[in-house]
């Protein structure tokens, strides 16, 4: 119990910090932070349930006013903003990524990659596009087109997440609660 609580809390803190690290700059010049990389890793390392709790804790604290969303934003205001769907989608993304790594006994890297594409790209973008439609009044087509430039970066991050999960499994085999 203590161990689960500590992992959930420390992964929530880790995502908060990774949000401030510029991880990848696309050839198009769009900078992408390591935030969703942290979300994918939380799912892959902690598994579905705990990964969901860790990311939900991060999101809840950001909504309560800690300046831990991208660009140092925080507070309930983001729910009215264009990124609301992505913020609310993060816990679900971790849940899906974690469930795939938990249930599918493929090598950690492969399971993480597939889980991250399913959760961190497909499910997350579906929710993000929904948020754009509600908050920015865009049509489904316009919202999808607006998000396309970000897709290559997030696919790249799914690859990175797979490599990182593999590295973590090697360095700290006991820490992979998803495979415990």
């Amino acid at each position, binding site marked *: 119990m203590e161990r689960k609580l*500590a992992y959930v809390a420390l992964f929530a803190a880790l995502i908060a*910090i990774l949000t401030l690290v510029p991880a990848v700059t696309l050839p198009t010049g769009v900078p992408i932070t390591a935030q969703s990389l942290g979300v994918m890793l939380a799912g892959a390392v902690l598994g579905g349930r705990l990964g969901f709790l860790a990311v939900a804790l991060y999101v809840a604290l950001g909504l309560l006013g800690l300046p831990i969303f991208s660009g140092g934003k925080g507070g309930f205001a983001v729910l009215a903003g*264009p990124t609301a769907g992505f913020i609310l989608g993060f816990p679900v993304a971790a849940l899906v990524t974690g469930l795939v790594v938990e249930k599918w006994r493929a090598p950690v890297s492969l399971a993480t990659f597939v889980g991250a594409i399913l959760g961190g790209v497909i499910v997350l973008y579906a929710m993000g596009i929904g948020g754009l439609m509600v908050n920015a009044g865009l049509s489904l087509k316009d919202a999808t087109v607006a998000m396309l430039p970000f897709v290559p970066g997030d696919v790249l991050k799914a690859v990175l997440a797979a490599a990182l999960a593999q590295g973590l499994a090697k360095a700290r085999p006991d820490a992979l609660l998803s495979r415990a």
Partner: protein
Amino acid sequence: MLTLTSPVQTPWHRLPAGPKLAGLLAFTLVLFGIDSPLVLAAILAAVAALYLPGGLAFVRHGLRMLRPLVPFVAIVAAWHLWTATPETGASIALRLVAGIGAANLVTMTTRLSDMIAVIERLAAPLHRFGLNPRLLAMAVALVIRFIPVMGDRVARLTEAWRARSPRRAGWRIVLPATLGAIDDAEQVAQALRARGGLG
């Protein structure tokens, strides 16, 4: 200190957190039901007026918190001018600024500890689903305590990288940062157990 709460005291600071959050929720729901740009402009003016009791420094802080919104409002404006629907564009932009302005006002005038207390109260009924409010409070405290610790670690890792490479570290920092988080978590778990555990 890691917080967005304004140090400037306003009358809003004295209102309890629960009703403020409930009011914000109601306000946002109403806001999304309004389409007329004129009414929305009036609402935005009213929200702006709520910042005035805090004085100049408070208003400046409020404007600074709205700055990340500028590029988005510019894009919405350009898009709707291009598609010749300026009225829709105006109401979207006004609604966004009014909603975010009101939410920021609550954030700026409510202490984090009060917000957490509200969440604990709201989470109390979740007890029967296995979510213990005490565990939640402990987790929240741990996150707030460890964000600066991990920030320091990432800063040191980045410096170490810079000392050895002309390129930016980027994602290469993530593995050592995550290993650090895992090791911290193991130590925190041991410390919690040594102090009697969470029961």
